C-alpha cells in the first residue's frame, strides 16, 4: 500500500512538474512573441505568383534597424501614406532597400515619390512591390506576372551591386544561369520555396510568427559567428572578407534581360556603396551600359555630395551603424528626388 502510494505520488509530482514546465514555456513563448513583434515583425503570406510577400493588411514594425512602422496592401504592395492616389501606375521593384521596413511609409522613397508626383507631373500612383532578398533574376523571372497584375505605365527597379552579382546567381533562390551561346536563363524556385510538406509548413509558420522569424535570424547569426572562431589564433587579425569578384558576373547580359523583360519602360535606381566614395566595378559597368544604350538610370552616388555635415550618410541608423546598412530617411529622400527628377525628364521627352 505504501509502495503504491509513493509510486502514485512520484507520478503525481512528475505530472505537476510537466504541467508547470509546459505552462511556463507557453507563457514565455507568448512574451517572446509579443516582444519580437515590437522588435522586428514582417508577417508574410504566400502569394501564388510572387512568393512570400508581406501580408495584405499587415502592419510591420522594425526597431532592430532604424525605427519604422509600415502598412501593406494586397499583393505585397506597400502603402504610400497618401489618402488617395490617381494616375497611371508606377511599379517600383527592389529588395529590402525598397521594402524598407526600417522607415515609416511616408519616409520611404516610394512614399516621398508619391507626394512629389501628386503635387506635380507626371501624375502617377506609386506601387511599391519591393520584397527583401530579391535580385535581378527575380525581377526578370517575375516580369510577366508583374506586368500582367499591375499593368505599370513605367517601372523603377532598385539595384545594388549584389543584386547583379552573387545574389543573382545564388542557387538557393531564383537565379541566373549561363547557358550555351553565352546567354542567360533564369532558374526559378517555386513560390512556396523548396522542400517537402514539413519544410513548407515551417516556412509558413515562420512567415507569420515574429518569434520564429527572429529566432531563425539569430541562429543564422550565431552560426556565422561560430565559423569566424579561430582556435589558438584569436589574437590574430580577423581574415578580411574578400568581396565577390564583380568582374566575373555578366552584368551587361543581366541588364539587357531586365530591359527586355519590361519592354524598356524601365528606370534603374542604383544604390552605390557610400563608405568607399569610389564606384565599384559593377557600378562602373552599369553606368557604362546605361550611357551606351541610352537607358534610364539614376545613381544615388550623384547625390553623395549633398550628404554634408548636417545631413549625414544615406545609409545606416544610430542603432545599427553609421554609413552602413539600409537607406535611412536622408537616403530615401535623395532617392525619391533623383527618381522624381528622372521621371520628369522622361515625361518632357514624351515617354510618360
Amino acid at each position, binding site marked *: 500500500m505504501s509502495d503504491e502510494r509513493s509510486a502514485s505520488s512520484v507520478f503525481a509530482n512528475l505530472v505537476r512538474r510537466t*504541467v*508547470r*514546465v509546459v*505552462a*511556463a*514555456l507557453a*507563457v*514565455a*513563448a507568448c*512574451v*517572446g512573441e509579443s*516582444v*519580437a513583434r515590437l*522588435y522586428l515583425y514582417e508577417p508574410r503570406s504566400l502569394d501564388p505568383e510572387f512568393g512570400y510577400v508581406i501580408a495584405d493588411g499587415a502592419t510591420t514594425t522594425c*526597431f532592430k534597424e532604424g*525605427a519604422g512602422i509600415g502598412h501593406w496592401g494586397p499583393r505585397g504592395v506597400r502603402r504610400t501614406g497618401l489618402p488617395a492616389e490617381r494616375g497611371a501606375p508606377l511599379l517600383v521593384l527592389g529588395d529590402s532597400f525598397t521594402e524598407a521596413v526600417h522607415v515609416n511609409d511616408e519616409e520611404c522613397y516610394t512614399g516621398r515619390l508619391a507626394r512629389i508626383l501628386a503635387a506635380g507631373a507626371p501624375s502617377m500612383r506609386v506601387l511599391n512591390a519591393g520584397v527583401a532578398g530579391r535580385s535581378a533574376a527575380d525581377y526578370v523571372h517575375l516580369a510577366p506576372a508583374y506586368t500582367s497584375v499591375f499593368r505599370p505605365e513605367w517601372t523603377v527597379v532598385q539595384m545594388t551591386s549584389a543584386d547583379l552579382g552573387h545574389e543573382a546567381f545564388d542557387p538557393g533562390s531564383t537565379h541566373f544561369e549561363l547557358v550555351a551561346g553565352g546567354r542567360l536563363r533564369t532558374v526559378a524556385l517555386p513560390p512556396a520555396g523548396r522542400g517537402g510538406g514539413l519544410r513548407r509548413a515551417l516556412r509558413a509558420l515562420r512567415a507569420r510568427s515574429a*518569434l520564429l522569424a*527572429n*529566432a531563425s535570424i*539569430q541562429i543564422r*547569426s*550565431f552560426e*556565422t*559567428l*561560430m565559423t*569566424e*572562431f579561430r*582556435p*589558438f*589564433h*584569436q*589574437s*590574430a587579425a*580577423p581574415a578580411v572578407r574578400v568581396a565577390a569578384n564583380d568582374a566575373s558576373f555578366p552584368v551587361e547580359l543581366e541588364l539587357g534581360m531586365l530591359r527586355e523583360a519590361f519592354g524598356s519602360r524601365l528606370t534603374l535606381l542604383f544604390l552605390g556603396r557610400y563608405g568607399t566614395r569610389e564606384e565599384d566595378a559593377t557600378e562602373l559597368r552599369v553606368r557604362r551600359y546605361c550611357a551606351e544604350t541610352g537607358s534610364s538610370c539614376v545613381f544615388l552616388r550623384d547625390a553623395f555630395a549633398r550628404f554634408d*555635415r*548636417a*545631413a*549625414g550618410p544615406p545609409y545606416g*541608423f*544610430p*542603432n*545599427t*551603424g*553609421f*554609413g552602413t546598412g539600409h537607406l535611412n530617411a536622408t537616403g530615401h529622400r535623395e532617392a525619391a528626388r533623383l527618381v522624381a527628377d528622372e521621371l520628369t525628364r522622361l515625361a518632357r521627352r514624351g515617354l510618360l
Partner: protein
Amino acid sequence: MVFSNPYYFLFLAGTLLLLALPVGVTGKKRLLAAASCLFYALWDYRYLGLLLLISLIDYVCAARIAASDSRRVRRAWLLTSIVSNLGVLGYFKYFNFFVDNLNGLLPHAHSIPHRDILLPAGISFYTFKTMSYVIDVHRRELGRVRTWMDYTTFITFFPELIAGPIVRASVLLPQLDRDIGLTRARFATGASAFLLGFTKKSIADHLAVMVDPVFDAPEVFDGATLAAAVLGYSLQIYCDFSGYSDMAIGSAKLIGYDLPENFDMPYASSSITEFWRRWHMTLSFWLRDYLYISLGGNRRGPFRTYVNLVLTMLLGGLWHGASWNFVLWGGLHGVALALHRLKGTRWRLPTMAATPLTFAFVSLCWIPFRAVGLDRTLAFLSGLATWRGGVRWISPTLFFLAALVVLGHAIGRSLFRTEGTRARRFDRALDALAASLDEGPLTGPYVRLGMGTWSGAALVFAWTLLAFLLAPVSNNPFIYFQF
C-alpha cells in the same frame, strides 16, 4: 573566447562535465587547471608559457619568503617578484608608449624604433593577482600555497583570467579544498548571475553601435549627439564590465567557487569616494591595499594623503592603458577624491542632488577614457561645450536602454539583500513576489531565479528567450579585454 560566444557555452559545459568525474578534489583541481590553460591557449597558445612562467616565479618567490625569517631575504624575494611582474607588464604594455614619449624628446636621427608587441590577454589582471599573493605572504597575512599545481589553478582560473574580477589569493586559495562541480544550488545561482551578465552585455553591445561612431569622429556630430554619446558610453562601459563580471562570477559559481563582487550599483553613488567603493571594487581595493597604503595612505598628514590619492589614481589610470588619456582620466578622479576628502563634512548636498552630480562628473571623465587620443578628447569637449551644429545621430533606443538600466538598478536595490540583514521597506510585497517565483526567499547577492513555481519557471524561460532573441550577435570583445 568571449563569454557570449556559443563556443564558450560548449567549453563551460565540457568543463562541468569533466568536473563531474569521480577523481577527488585534487584530480578536479588538475582538470580545472588544464581546462583553464586550454581556455587561455585558445586565445593564443604562444602566451600560455608566459602565464605559467609568471606563476612559477611568484610561487618560488613566495615559498622563499615563507621559508625565511630574515627581513633582508624576504624583502629581496618580494622585490624579485615585483620587478619581474612589473617588468613583464611594463614591456608588453608600456614599451611602445615610453618609446613614443622618449622619441618626442630625442632628435629624429636618434629615434628608437617601435616593436611589434602583442599585448597578452589578461596580463594586467593576472599580474595584479599574483603580486597580491606574494605581498600577502610577505606581510604574513597569508600562508604559502602547498603546491605549484594549486597555485596554477588559482592563477589560471579561467572565468576571471582575462578581465577580472581581480581575485586575491586570500579569497580563492582557501576555496581550493572544496569539492567542486555542478550542483542544483550552484546551478540556480550561477545561471542567474550568468544570465544577468549576458543581458547586460547585450545592452552594452546595442549601446556600442550608437556610441562608437560618435567617439571615433566627434567633429562630425552635433552637441546633442555628443551629449547622448556620453550618456550612452557611461551605460555601455558599466553594462559591459559589470556584465562580464557577472558572467565570470556566474561561471565560477557553476564550478563551485565564489568570486568577489566587482560592482555595487556605482551610478547610485552620491560622492566620488562612494563611487570608488562601488566601481571595479576589486581593482579599487587592490590599489588601496597595495599601493595607497604602501605610499603611506592617510598616515602622513593631510597633504601627503592628497598626494597619495592623486598618485594612486594616476597609476590606476595608467594601468588601464598606455595612453595619456588614461592618465588624464585617473588624474581627474584622483583630484576629485582629494577635493572630496578636503571638503570633509562641509557643504553636504542632499542625495537627490549629489547623485546626479556625481554621475555627471563620472560621465564627463569617461570622455578622455574612451576617446582615442588627446586631440579627439579636445574635439569632443569643445563640441559639447559650444553645442555646435553637425550630424544628429541619436537613437530612441538609447533612452529605452537607459530606462531599462535605471529600472534594473531600482529593482536590484530592492530585491538584492544578503542573508541576515534587516528587512527593508516593501519587504512584505517582495517576499510575496519571491514566494511566487521560487519555493524559498530570495537570498544572497543575486536573485536566484527559481524553477519551483510555474511563474518562476516562466520568468526564467522568458528572460532566457528574450536574451537570446535580442542579443546583438558579434565577436565584440569586452571593453576591459583591451586592458
